């Protein structure tokens, strides 16, 4: 092993957190909680409980590994999010790996609403989000990726970021999108990012998802944000892009208020 590889192994952070829930007396109860390394899962109790995942390492870089997992038993309705934006820093070599797994049981519903992922210049990461829905389970998922922080004058010109988002119903893929950002992709024109700094994808997987298309399209009106939506094959897909993260977040908040009843996750409100 050379010296560089030795340093990377020493600095490498690792974390895994898994929270499992079951319905008992019509209340959602935490049944399982495993946490290791830099990953934590905090359960905010209440009539609509929330799970907040947290990476105590303060961001990811080359060869770091972070895994979050959720199990929702039959009938559980739950919101899960992350405590803060996840930062993916310049990689000294190697890919940071992030895994998100959720099993959503019969008649259960998951809102997976992580906060933004911020890529720094030379960030290298691979994330794989896999949500398995029971035949009559439903799910709302929102992912925002931000390229550098505008306020800090950061520009991302180099990255290797692959973001797999897979929703399956039974064992069959229901929705898949694989965002693959590389240096050349960052330079694309109108077909690609066209110089924007923030992009988001929102997916509602539910039998009646198409019913929300009209109200969703009507809500895509925040200044400085381009938005588009389509409903098909048991899913509603919404895409957003904006020159900066802030208007995109305002649009996301507005959109989520149309797509789900009740207030936003508590950590989103600060």
């Amino acid at each position, binding site marked *: 092993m050379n010296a560089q590889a030795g340093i990377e192994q020493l600095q490498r952070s690792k974390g895994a957190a898994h929270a499992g829930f079951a319905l008992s007396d019509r209340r959602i109860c935490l049944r399982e909680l495993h946490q290791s390394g830099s990953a934590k899962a905090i359960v905010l109790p209440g009539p609509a409980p929330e799970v907040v995942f947290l990476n105590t390492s303060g961001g990811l870089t080359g060869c770091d590994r972070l895994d979050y997992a959720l199990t929702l038993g039959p009938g559980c309705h739950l919101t899960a999010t992350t405590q803060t934006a996840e930062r993916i820093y310049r990689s000294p070599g190697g890919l940071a790996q992030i895994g998100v797994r959720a099993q959503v049981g019969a008649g259960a519903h998951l809102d997976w609403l992580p906060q933004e992922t911020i890529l720094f210049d030379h960030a290298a990461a691979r994330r794989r989000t896999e949500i398995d829905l029971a035949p009559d389970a439903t799910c709302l998922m929102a992912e925002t990726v931000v390229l550098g922080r505008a306020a800090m004058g950061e520009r991302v010109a180099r990255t290797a970021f692959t973001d797999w988002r897979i929703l399956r119903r039974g064992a069959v893929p229901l929705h898949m999108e694989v965002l693959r950002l590389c240096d050349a992709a960052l330079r694309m024109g109108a077909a690609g990012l066209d110089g924007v700094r923030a992009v988001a994808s929102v997916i509602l997987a539910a039998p009646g998802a198409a019913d929300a298309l009209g109200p969703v399209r009507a809500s895509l009106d925040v200044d400085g944000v381009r938005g588009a939506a389509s409903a*098909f094959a048991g899913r509603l897909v919404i895409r957003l892009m904006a020159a900066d993260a802030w208007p995109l977040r305002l649009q996301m908040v507005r959109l989520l208020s149309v797509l789900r009843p009740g207030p936003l996750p508590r950590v989103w409100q600060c």
Partner: protein
Amino acid sequence: MDSATLQLTHWLSPAFPTGAFAYSHGLEQVIAQGAVSDAASLEHWLSDVLHHGAGWQDGVLLALALEPGADLDTLDAMAQALQPSAERLQESTEQGAAFARTVARITARPLPPRALPIAVAEAARPLNPDPAQVIALYLQGFATNLVTIAIRHVPLGQGEGHAVLARLLPPITALAARAARAGMEDLGTACLGADMAAMDHETKEVRLFRT
């Protein structure tokens, strides 16, 4: 040229009845929005879609579906799940169904309807083709259809439009060679603008094309 190559060229030519002429892959929308307004902007847009959008994605799916022992049902489900909008799903599945129907009729093989890249791979498998060649012909067909649409609707001169296509052929050859060697892990797109144009197209009041 051997007869298998000629057969593939026939199947992947614009004359083959897949109904490709009805699908603009969002190009009608970007022409209306002004993002594609001349030969240079067409070339940029098409090159991006080929390298970072449906071109690369379909190329990789085709390569996966040509592998020995490929599970075509699973790949077809994936190909459909990967479509970003209602019209793009229709573009892939309806052309795939028409393609399979016509090849089934010609070859007397039972070919089920599938997303287009999987339908093409399933039809081509008995010919033991060079995957890079099938993918190159497939991508050339895709690009030719969009250039033809651009010539009529930007509009562009025939020579100007076909010069764009000619300039894209060397990159298509290189892209097809890369896609032929790719695995599942190499899937991925970044053509978010093109995907959103396809979504916007659904709300366009007058539509000449289905995408």
